[in-house]
């Protein structure tokens, strides 16, 4: 497992981003390595989700950290370096146009690889793969502004304030874009009832995660 070693390396340095940035300024390259190991996966995923090219995503990771190192002297991370790095990565990803004639490996390929190691039944795996294909196709139909919000939130786990910092707009705008993207996606899912992504089923499945008792009551009443 190549990822375990890097995770260990990242976890080994328990210093905050701010401390690591200051240590890097003093010439401690181990601090810079710790920052790299801490954020390389997220930046790679972001670059891969936007460019759909793993090689380009790797280059984006390298370019992002190279820029971070050049700008380390004037970087003032208040709490975390993550939004700054992601903003650079988003800009680099959108500046990188796909080369002509190059066959991109899609996100579905990654999903196919992960599905082969899953323990579920073939039919459920096939349904899951179909759902992912449809969902990601729907995400691809979104414009760059909406897509980046979706990717940052659902793939990289950034909260609304961090996304607002990354895309350099108010939090309200981020909420609006996310809302729009979800509505578009819901419309796509409605065209595929065979996937079983009916609202009631979803709410039942997510009851444990989100205590939405009032909403559930209303939804149940409406369904009756």
């Amino acid at each position, binding site marked *: *497992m*190549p*990822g375990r070693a*890097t*995770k260990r390396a990242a976890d080994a340095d328990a210093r905050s981003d701010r401390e690591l940035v200051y240590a890097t300024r003093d010439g401690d*390259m181990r601090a810079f*390595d710790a920052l*790299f*190991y801490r954020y*390389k*996966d997220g930046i*790679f*995923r972001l670059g891969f*989700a936007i460019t759909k090219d793993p090689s380009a995503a*790797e280059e984006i*990771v*390298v*370019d992002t*950290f*190279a820029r971070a*190192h*050049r700008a380390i002297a004037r970087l003032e991370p208040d709490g975390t370096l993550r939004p700054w790095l992601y903003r650079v990565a988003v800009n680099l990803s959108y500046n990188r146009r796909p080369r002509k004639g190059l066959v991109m490996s899609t996100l579905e390929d*990654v*999903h196919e*690889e*992960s*599905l082969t190691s899953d323990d579920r039944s073939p039919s459920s795996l096939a349904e*899951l793969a179909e*759902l*992912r294909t449809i*969902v990601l196709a729907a*995400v691809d139909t979104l414009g760059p502004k909406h897509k980046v919000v*979706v990717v940052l*939130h*659902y793939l990289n*786990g950034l*909260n*609304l*304030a961090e996304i607002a910092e990354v895309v350099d707009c108010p939090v309200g705008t981020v*909420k*609006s874009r*996310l*809302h729009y993207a*979800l*509505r578009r*996606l*819901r419309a796509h899912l409605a065209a595929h009832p065979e996937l079983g*992504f009916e*609202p009631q089923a*979803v*709410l039942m*499945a*997510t009851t444990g995660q*989100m205590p*939405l*008792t*009032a909403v559930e*009551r*209303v*939804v149940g009443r409406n369904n009756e």
Partner: protein
Amino acid sequence: MSALLAGALDQRERLDVESHASRCARCATAYRDLVCASVALDRAYAPLRAMDVAMSPARVRLALRLPQPIPASLRLGRLTARVTEVALAAAVTAFAFVGSATVAPKTTIVDEAAPDSGTLTHVTAGADDEYFFRWLRIGRYAAPSDLLDPAVALRGDISESPIANDRPGLAR
């Protein structure tokens, strides 16, 4: 709604939304739809979220043209290799000097006591092969008169010498 789904609301705001949704069927339906899409997105991105990337910060240093740090273990290995290299060179040099100083040159053993039988006496004494080859070299590069025993040469022609008869072609 999006803020609620994104987990950006605190407990009080969340309760407010829920209480409103319990009274408003339109908002409840909208929320229900958004939850569907949100869960679908969450599941679609799950495999990619679990993906690890095997990349080294050395690539960044290469891009920045920074010197690569050498780990302590590698530094020790390099030092050991260098010391071994120097020690080996010193040992070879010492062996060459000491060997040349202690090995004495071999003296040619000539059987002086042997009677003059008309043949080259030094061929019959000592290590035969060594003397033979030495004699052979002399035969090739020396003048023909040097090869012959003066006594034999005085008695007859070169063609009648025992060397010419015994080993034809060697004196050429």
